[in-house]
């Protein structure tokens, strides 16, 4: 029978001064959970791990294999051996939670954190009847909005893999945001609850997520926390929660890219962090480096067409309202002042001037540009 060595993390805080690894030889068949049960039945009954349903619905048996988060009952031993070419497999408990014993971690803390995000339905009495014999109508299409989020089984795989949790212990965790977001897109949930969820999400680190997307890859159930976090951020801005640096950064990106086709590196520190001196310091620094620097970015060619496309994309994502047109108009005015022309014609005029100056090359460029 083909076998492989498992190096399993062992730690009993009452007996062991520090954790250690114990090696067990197990058959290469079935799932990783089968292998652990094999150890418990045949080699070492003192090994502790959580397991229950055996069929990937209960979320008990998540752990790490050579650093990668896996659900033991969903992980084929054969595939593991093939992936790691027969090398020993190191089995560790999940990260970011205290070890109770061996592979068992304390999941109370992430659950407590999740609770602060109101991850339950707060029914809107205008949609959900209070009469228990009256059905509330929900169309199949509207359920698509939360079809993935409802599959979270609290296995804490994403919590273990999350970089934001690593940096910020107050960060609520990817799954918590997904479970909260599920109700943000449910018509039955009352508006006031949705607003509170946003408020608590922001204080729970909504803008701390670095969008590393690890949660999205480790989730055994296809939940996409990173996307839900982005959508929650969008909702936060739409609801006027724009005082956080993350929200301001997003606003800066959306507005400046629409207005000029790129972000403004001189204005970013002031608009995001309120740092009024940064602009002058940066200008000076750029000049010393010999880098050409404009107070506003030089408008790109075909900007008006770009704006149409950009707006179309935003509309499709239902984010067109994120654009702050009064801000855009201000930027337009700055551009007109600096480049001495009306914004609708300025782009082409600036480039025309350049083209003339650059002679032949400019003409060629114009040809390629499709003029």
């Amino acid at each position, binding site marked *: 029978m083909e076998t492989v060595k498992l190096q399993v993390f062992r730690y009993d805080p009452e007996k062991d001064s520090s954790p250690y690894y114990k090696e067990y030889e197990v058959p290469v068949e079935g799932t990783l959970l089968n292998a652990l049960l094999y150890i418990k039945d045949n080699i070492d*009954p003192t090994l502790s791990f959580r397991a229950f349903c055996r069929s990937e619905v209960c979320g008990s048996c998540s752990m790490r294999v050579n650093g990668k988060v896996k659900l033991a009952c969903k992980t084929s031993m054969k595939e593991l051996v093939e992936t790691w070419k027969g090398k020993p497999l190191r089995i560790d408990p999940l990260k970011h939670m205290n070890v109770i014993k061996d592979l*068992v971690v304390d999941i109370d803390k992430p659950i407590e954190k999740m609770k602060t995000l109101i991850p339950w339905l707060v029914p809107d009495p205008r949609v959900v009847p209070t009469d228990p014999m009256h059905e509330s109508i929900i169309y199949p299409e509207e359920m698509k909005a939360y079809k993935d989020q409802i599959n979270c089984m609290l296995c804490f795989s994403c919590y273990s893999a999350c970089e934001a949790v690593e940096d910020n212990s107050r960060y609520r965790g990817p799954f918590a945001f997904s479970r909260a977001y599920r109700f943000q897109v449910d018509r*039955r949930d009352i508006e006031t609850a949705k607003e509170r969820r946003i408020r608590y999400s922001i204080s729970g680190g909504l803008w701390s997520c670095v969008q590393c997307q690890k949660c999205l890859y480790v989730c055994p159930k296809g939940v996409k926390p990173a996307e839900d976090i982005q959508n929650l951020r969008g909702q936060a801005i739409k609801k006027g929660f724009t005082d956080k640096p993350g929200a301001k950064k997003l606003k800066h990106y959306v507005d400046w890219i629409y207005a000029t086709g790129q972000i403004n590196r001189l204005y970013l520190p002031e608009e995001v962090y309120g740092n009024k001196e940064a602009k002058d310091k940066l200008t000076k620094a750029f000049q010393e480096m010999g880098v050409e620097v404009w107070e506003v970015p030089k408008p790109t060619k075909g900007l008006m067409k770009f704006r149409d496309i950009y707006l179309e994309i935003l509309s499709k994502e239902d984010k067109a309202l994120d654009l702050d047109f009064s801000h855009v108009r201000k930027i337009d005015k700055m551009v007109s002042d600096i480049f001495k022309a009306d914004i609708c014609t300025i782009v082409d005029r600036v480039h025309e001037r350049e083209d003339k100056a650059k002679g032949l090359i400019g003409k060629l460029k114009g040809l390629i540009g499709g003029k």
Partner: protein
Amino acid sequence: MLDYDIVIVGGGGAGLYAALWAAENTILKVAVMTKVYPTRSHTGAAEGGINAVLTHSVGDSPEAHAYDTVKGSDFLADQDAVDIMCKMGAAVIYDIAHRGVPFSRRPDGRIAQRPFGGASFPRTCYAADKTGFYILQTLYEQCLKNNVTFLNEWFLLSIIHNGERVEGITAWDIRNGGVHLIKTKAVILATGGHARVYWNRTSNALGNTGDGTAAALRAGLPLKDMEFIQFHPTGLAKTGILVTEGARGEGGYLRNKDGERFMKRYAPEKMELAPRDIVARAIQTEIDEGRGCGPNGDYICLDLTHLGEERIKERLPQTREHAILYEGVDPVKEPIPIAPTAHYSMGGIDTDKLGRTPIKGLYAAGECACISVHGANRLGGNSLLDILVYGRLTALEAVKYADDAPETNPSVAKLKDDEKRILELMEASGKEKVPQLRRELGETMMKHFGVFREESSMKEGLEKLYGIKERAKEVKVYDTSKKFNTDLISTLEFLNLVDLAPAIAIPAIERRESRGSHARKDYPKRDDKNFLKHSVVNLEEDGSYKLSWKPVVITKFPPEERKY
């Protein structure tokens, strides 16, 4: 000493729904104690759906549902209880839908229903093929919302009562170690089933070990209809893990090695959608008579290929995932190998139609209880209904009782006993090993008390069970640590199964007829004259099991031949 007014043991569908209704209807101190985290509970594995007659079910009625349930039970269910359950169907469905359960919907926005085995009308509400999972998650969310007190990862040891009313329980705190005495006026047992007694071939989770049922038995409470264990017709061939009945509800075919849809010989009208016991026996017969598939002829094929990729992916995503992982078969392209697997315990703690036991303040709900709404055979989709209806009813009963009940004063004797028992387990000789004995227990149950049963074989089996029970006194817990000692827990679970096994075997031998899931080769016919009655098993002081009988409540539906 922990002190509550109501302790709910078990955090599955019945326990959480009970907690929710208790929390919303009283200011009493309520706690849910569970040996796992609530969302791990096996309710989460229920796939197919939940039966109920809804307001838009034109042509259907709670009476029709009750009739189907009674007929499905082979007339052993108590009809007054069935009546209560079926009438409450719509109310619990709308209630949990209003709390957020994402039921699948018809194009007009109403809750969708599909046909299920043994039902005369498509009345099974579902949420894709993860109905139980979504119900469990939603109930958990709602419990968090209502600030329900949880004792997560606590293991029930003993029930304390004074012969008249319940006084408390003892439990092991898994996380920190240590036996605790919990004082309470009322206890709702919602600890789930015990089909793990068929250790090697069951659809159940590792922990469905009848802990509440065994504790009740040891506390002198009667267990009812324990001989009835449902074998689900479609367990994955290698592991026994479940393939939902929804797979047949969606139109899946069962085929033997000749590709024949053999159900036409067993239930020509209902075919694959005949009740579970009939389908399980048909499959077992095909296998026993040499028409099984595969090199050993030990399984049957569940063919979904004609449903098409899109429908399988949309309606049966989990089934597909499991088939690929555990059998290496993609149901879109190939049929799934399946065989019967021990699935559900119809029997359990004897209660009346409101979930009350003979001890005041002690209730049982869900699979650990035998009310009985399932009689000799449960219909698919009725267990989720059962846990919700009876979770809610027992909660309301417990609230009513605990409101007026005087304080209790449980003695510490049980606490000392349990502490001693655990210490003894850790200091035992270890001559016998739990994994070995557990395998033997499972083999004995499957061989002698499986899909088909026979007197001489069962008597032989019972002797083996007594033998295992005797040898189980020599098992040892090797892990001496206090924190998260899973060696201790799995040993206690095993000992619970050992206590329950004879309570299944004895009435199985004495019920000399075939009824529902209890199929005897030597008595192939139902015998209403002698056996239209519930079996009741008690554990005597001397450790022997005493069998008695109890009448069935028949109101509207006189027994008739059960044909599909």
